[in-house]
């Protein structure tokens, strides 16, 4: 029983440590977020004087599709462009990808939306699936840019 208890206590300790680590970091991030918000507000009020600073995005409005190779097969995405900005990215089919990997790889979508470009880092641990999403989006965006001429 002694060994079992030692192991059980170790596991509980590891979980508690992780939790504590997360809580501390969470609080720190919250503080940072607040500072960032205040800064953004300041900048906004400064920018309000100069009107029309919001530039049009680089893409033409519409819904575009793209396909690229994931881990076990093709990954299809749908990219929606609104007001020249990428507003939504949906994965329409990725049948050959493993569930856990795909849902991890989907974390690349917010990054792409933030960067407004497919040139972002892939998700480590789900390299193939996230590369698939990234390249499929890149393909779709190529289409969005091409429509101009």
């Amino acid at each position, binding site marked *: 029983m002694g060994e079992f208890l030692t192991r*059980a206590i170790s596991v509980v300790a590891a979980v508690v440590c992780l939790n504590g680590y997360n809580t501390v970091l969470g609080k720190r991030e919250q503080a940072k977020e607040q500072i960032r918000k205040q800064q953004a507000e300041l900048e906004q009020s400064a920018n309000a004087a100069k009107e029309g600073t919001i530039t049009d995005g680089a893409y033409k409005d519409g819904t575009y599709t793209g396909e690229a190779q994931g881990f076990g097969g093709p990954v299809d995405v749908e990219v929606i462009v609104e007001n020249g900005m990428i507003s939504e990215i949906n994965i329409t089919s990725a049948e050959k990808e493993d569930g*856990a990997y795909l849902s991890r790889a989907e974390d690349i979508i917010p990054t792409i939306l933030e960067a407004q470009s497919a040139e972002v880092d892939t998700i480590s641990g789900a390299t193939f699936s996230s590369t698939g999403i990234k390249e499929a989006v890149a393909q779709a965006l190529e289409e969005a840019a091409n429509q101009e001429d």
Partner: protein
Amino acid sequence: MDIHNLTAKDRKKIYTRLRAMIQLMYFVFIPSVYTAAFAGVKYIFTRIGAGEKVGMTSFVTVLLVICLYTMVFGRFFCGFACTFGTFGDALRALYIKVCKKRKKKPVKIPEKAVGILCYMKYLVLLLIVLLCYSGVYGKAQGTSPWDVFSMIHAGNFRLGGYGIGLVVLILLMAGMCVQERFFCRFFCPMGAVFSLLPVLPFFALHRTRKNCRKGCKACAKICPSQIGLPTDGSWEISGDCFQCQKCIDICPQKHIHCGIRKLKGNEFWFTILRALILLGICLRLGL
């Protein structure tokens, strides 16, 4: 079908077939649990190393759930559902068959070496964890034999840059032939995590030691991990038991049973039940 009235030989055959069938099912339909679970370990340490928050990503969920399952049912996952373990079992069975046909004695790893090799998995785990923590693991892509194996399994043959991984995989395959559960026992980093977990005794195998024949070591000999089973009521459960249950059928006195004794004789159904519970978990997780 009444399993209780079968001869020992027939019963052994049925169990072997049942296990092979469950293994094949998981091999074909749910092949990525082991890598996803270990990706959870890597993710946790990569995030800590980078000073970032550890999120409840799909990998971490898989890791947690499989660890909980193992704490309750022992390493049933390893013995029945791990794709890499199944691959090793198949290679081993093939090697034994070839040896029999050619009337050659199978090569064996000396016992002293086995004793040392057992600790290698902890080193492998430590090395990978440290690499993740220091943030250089991403650069070591192409060295993992698991990546190469799961790529081939998925029909993805873009193996450029995976040369080292391929060589390691081939070396491991040679080892898998020579020793049952070679990788699982000696090098599996996920196995290292499992074997450190506290396993509850209720479904772990025990033996009624006091009635054993003198000098009989049948159970330890057939065991892929050469475990001397704990006696009744003991909480000292070996983390190296893969729940393959070969010992149950080999014991001439039928002394081996789960911590819960009422399950004795119903191992066939209990195995199916455990496989189904695991299947339910996997489906729930969307694997």
